[in-house]
């Protein structure tokens, strides 16, 4: 039983003092899965594991205030997809690997509330977290699925002519509330002060209007270029259901084509936009 092992592992880590906090999944009042933060070994009973464990808990590791408050070692439960974001954070020197214990759990795919497998899980290639990366692995070893990335949904949008494409996106930009849930849930959006929050100078119109919203989502996409690992959290949390993964996957596709780079695969590799090479392709510079 996976959950049994998660609980005993968490308990052992907390009891022997190798971590002072476990970040995992628990259940809230109405029965939804929610992130839980466990300090007392007796509280490990709160931990759960099921197909509703959507949250990419790595998000808390890049939260400065959170790390400040919990300055001891942290044990964190991750799925294969979450592991990618942790690797990006490590490559950007945002997380002290020595201070975290990574508990990787085999994930068989997440379900939405209607019982359908999430789209991101259909395309998943890391069901089983890396053995040499995690400190503990729980669950059966599953052979890596070598999948050719399918970008047909992106091609579909690319094939629209410009006015149609604008209409497609403006339909969502008109409704975007600028609640910033997409930005704040993202483990890779960790700027100390977001450009969206700066008022002097004001870079992006701060009110919820189609012009400002367009710019917000374009800037967000640029800042995630070569970094986004398609964990899909932004799309999941968007209250108006904006298909944000389509933006993310577009930039993933471009980075793959231009630089033959996939983020989150290797923590030693820097993202193409953060490094310089003499033989970098220049054919797209006018």
């Amino acid at each position: 039983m996976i959950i049994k092992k998660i609980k005993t592992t968490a308990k052992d880590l907390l009891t022997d003092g190798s971590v002072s906090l476990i970040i995992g999944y628990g259940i809230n009042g109405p029965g939804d899965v929610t992130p839980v933060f466990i300090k007392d070994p007796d509280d490990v009973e709160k931990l759960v594991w099921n197909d509703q464990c959507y949250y990419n808990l790595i998000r808390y590791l890049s939260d400065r205030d959170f790390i400040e408050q919990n300055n001891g070692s942290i044990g964190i439960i991750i799925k294969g997809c979450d592991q990618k974001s942790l690797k990006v954070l490590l490559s950007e020197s945002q997380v002290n690997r020595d201070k975290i214990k990574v508990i990787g759990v085999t994930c068989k795919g997440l379900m939405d509330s209607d019982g359908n497998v999430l789209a991101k899980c259909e395309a998943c290639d890391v069901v089983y977290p890396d053995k040499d990366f995690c400190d503990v692995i729980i669950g059966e070893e599953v052979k890596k699925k070598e999948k050719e990335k399918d970008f047909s949904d992106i091609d579909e949008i690319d094939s629209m002519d410009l006015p149609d494409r604008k209409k497609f996106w403006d339909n969502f930009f008109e409704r975007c509330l600028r609640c910033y849930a997409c930005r704040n849930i993202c483990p890779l959006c960790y700027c100390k002060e977001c450009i969206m929050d700066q008022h002097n100078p004001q870079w992006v119109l701060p009110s919820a209007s189609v012009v400002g919203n367009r710019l917000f989502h374009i800037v967000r996409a640029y800042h995630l270029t070569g970094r986004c690992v398609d964990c899909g959290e932004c799309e999941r949390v968007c209250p108006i259901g904006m298909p944000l993964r389509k933006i993310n996957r577009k930039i993933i596709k471009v980075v793959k084509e231009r630089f033959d780079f996939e983020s989150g695969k290797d923590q030693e590799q820097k993202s193409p936009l953060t490094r310089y090479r003499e033989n970098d392709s220049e054919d797209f510079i006018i």
Partner: protein
Amino acid sequence: MDMLILNKHELIDNIKSLFKDYEIVGPSQLDGKLYFRPVKSMDEVVWDFVNPVNNIKDFFFPPSQVLYELRQDRIKAFEPDTKKKRIILFAKSCDTRALNLLDKLFIGDYKDTSYTARRETTTIIGLSCLEPADRCFCISLGGGPFATKGMDVSISPVRKDKFLLHILTDKGKDIIAEQGTRPEREELSLTEALKQKAEEAIKRKINIPSDFFEKFDSDYWKGVSQACIKCGICTYLCPACHCFDIIDEGYFRIRCWDTCSSDTFTKMAAGEDHRKQKYKKYRQRIYHKFQYYKENFGEIACVGCGRCTTYCPVKMDIVEIVNNS
């Protein structure tokens, strides 16, 4: 005031006749989600639903609104366009009750002109809640699925395709034609039975502890707010949250929604922030609703619609958090 029994087609015909003179807003599907939004015909309107993503406060206190345009030689004030009156269809009792709460602030000691103008030119047709969602907790806050507070006309089902209309205000009287029949005792008791069934379906209760105010300095808030990601969903989708910011965009001065959870909410001009930590931000939201609003206006600023729990990215549950405080 008046009570009428109407068939569904009579009701639809009545509403159809209003499209000429009114802008009609109703619950309507868009890209797989339900919103209160302007509709062109009754075919777009959904009858059976739990709370849409947005709530009706958007039509009185919009997410962003231009206050005035400031040029070197002139100032042009922007008033809301209220030439065409508006009808909001099928608002649920939680949303309409929240509007009464907002009235206390926006039409209180200080009268907010744009809010007041929109309020005066909008008629609200409410629809009773037959099947409340499992996140609803309106009863414990003084509301109920069949409550009518804040509505001009309320519609409650009697049986399939038959409705009991309760005309509650003069504004309501203006839009409902003299028609149908007077309700008979049997019809009233059928509605009463549906009401009881709906009320029984609401299992969740919020119980504010008697020593809630004394808990202000407790470490409890640090613990429960840990998961919060400081986004604005709970406040923006809340029918009773009303904080706003005044910002400049080019020549325009704009009033837009703001949220106590954001990092910029309490940031002062010199960079000082007296509510920097996350738990202070989250605590502010809870205390504003359950303590300060009550002190200032006599009522709790929460109506139990459950949107904050439903849409929270990390599923923080306000009922559990308040009850255990």
